[in-house]
């Protein structure tokens, strides 16, 4: 177990590495998560979206980057704060894999 006082930083580092936010050079893109297609940052997208709704709701959309931006910005206001660097990679994933 992680000592509890180290958990926040430790967890952030591990999650960051797993999500590819820290460092790069992951050997292969992560596999699909439920209905979300495989792709870089899919875990982050899943982790953020599923706070409020199922992933099916995401996977059935087909939007360009501007369309996704509107949606992600709205979710931001709904109480899922998404830092700008996360927003960028989330939009990368969504517009690449769930584009028009």
């Amino acid at each position, binding site marked *: 177990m992680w000592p509890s006082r180290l958990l926040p930083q430790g*967890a952030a580092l591990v999650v960051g590495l797993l999500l590819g936010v820290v460092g790069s050079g992951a050997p292969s893109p992560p596999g699909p998560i439920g209905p979300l297609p495989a792709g870089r940052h899919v*875990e982050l997208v899943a982790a953020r979206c599923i706070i409020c*709704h199922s992933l099916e709701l995401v996977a059935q959309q087909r939007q360009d980057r501007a369309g996704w931006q509107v949606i992600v910005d709205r979710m931001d206001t709904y109480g899922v704060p998404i830092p700008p660097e996360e927003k960028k990679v989330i939009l990368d994933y969504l517009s690449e894999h769930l584009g028009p």
Partner: protein
Amino acid sequence: MADFNCPLQAPDPMTRRGFIVHVGTAAALLGGAMPVLAQTSAPAIPGKDKLIVRSPRPLNLEARLDDLTSPITPYEAFFVRNNYDGPEMDPAQFVLKVDGEVGNPLTLRLDDLKRMEQVTQTITLECAGNGRSFHNPKAPGLQWENGAVGTGVWKGVRLADILRLAKPRPSARHVVPDGNDAPPTAQAPDFIRSHPIWKAMEVHTMVALEMNGRPVPHLHGGPARLLVPGWVGSASIKWLTRLTLADQEWNGPFMQRSYRSPRAENPKETYSLQSLECKSIIIRPLDGAQMAAGPHTLFGFAWGGEGTITAVDVSTDGGKSWATAKLTGEEHRYAWRRWELGWDAKSGAQTIMARASDSLGRLQPPSRPPDPQGYRWNVIHAVRVNVA
């Protein structure tokens, strides 16, 4: 951070497919400190397994046209549309408050509502976004095909009777209903849509306590739900708990941002959706059906919101010629109308189309201008069949 009711602690029980989602392998690396994101199991929605799951959470279920054969849609085939899910409510604890611009605020229990004059009405409900998946360009939102529509027999109390008891002041111009649904975060806006007082007082607008002869099931908004007949489904607030009379329209995002479409005369302006469009769907044959040559009965349903259906024309030659279908069964002010037409099918690939017209002079169109949020889809329904 908000104190939201986060599914990280409460795996979703409403999902259908049996998959388990982890944040990569973080959970294992952290010795189980990262919880499972979503754990789903076999169908957990008794009686609703015929429906297509558009979203497990919030729960949104679409009917297959295959199952919409009856003028009264049974529970098993009735679509479910939730902006947010709501907890099941104990009828014994149910309270409906009526407040705002009234002289006599009310607190009504279920028994109080049952003691009032009861009315029974056959009413069609259709989601504003039914058919969204057919829009081009693609509109964001649930990608419904044609099955977010159904017709129930609803019993309950006229909304006007409840409002009169509360003695609305002259300043009461709108009714703001609220339901017991639960936004997933503290910041997500409550799902509220208001109605002008004229529609609230109209004799068909009601608070339903029964659907198809039994208490309104939880998934359809029980113990008590609003029914604003002829209007987009979102007007008919589920799990009703409060009616506030106000001097102006509700200014929340579900009035001012969602459920709006461009005006025909000026597409830069939008208006808040009220009446459903004039529309028909073909129930038989199903798209892609293999049929034997010879006599068949084509049938479907047509509805027009504030308009009543005056005719349904059917083409069996891809729109070159049209024949008038027979309107059958009972006619109700705010329910769909069944139509049928005999057809002597000849061998080959055939395209069948149905086109409704209504008392407001509306004709189902062959195409639609863009609707950025994907509402009002009522383009002529066409099915393609192969006749052997």
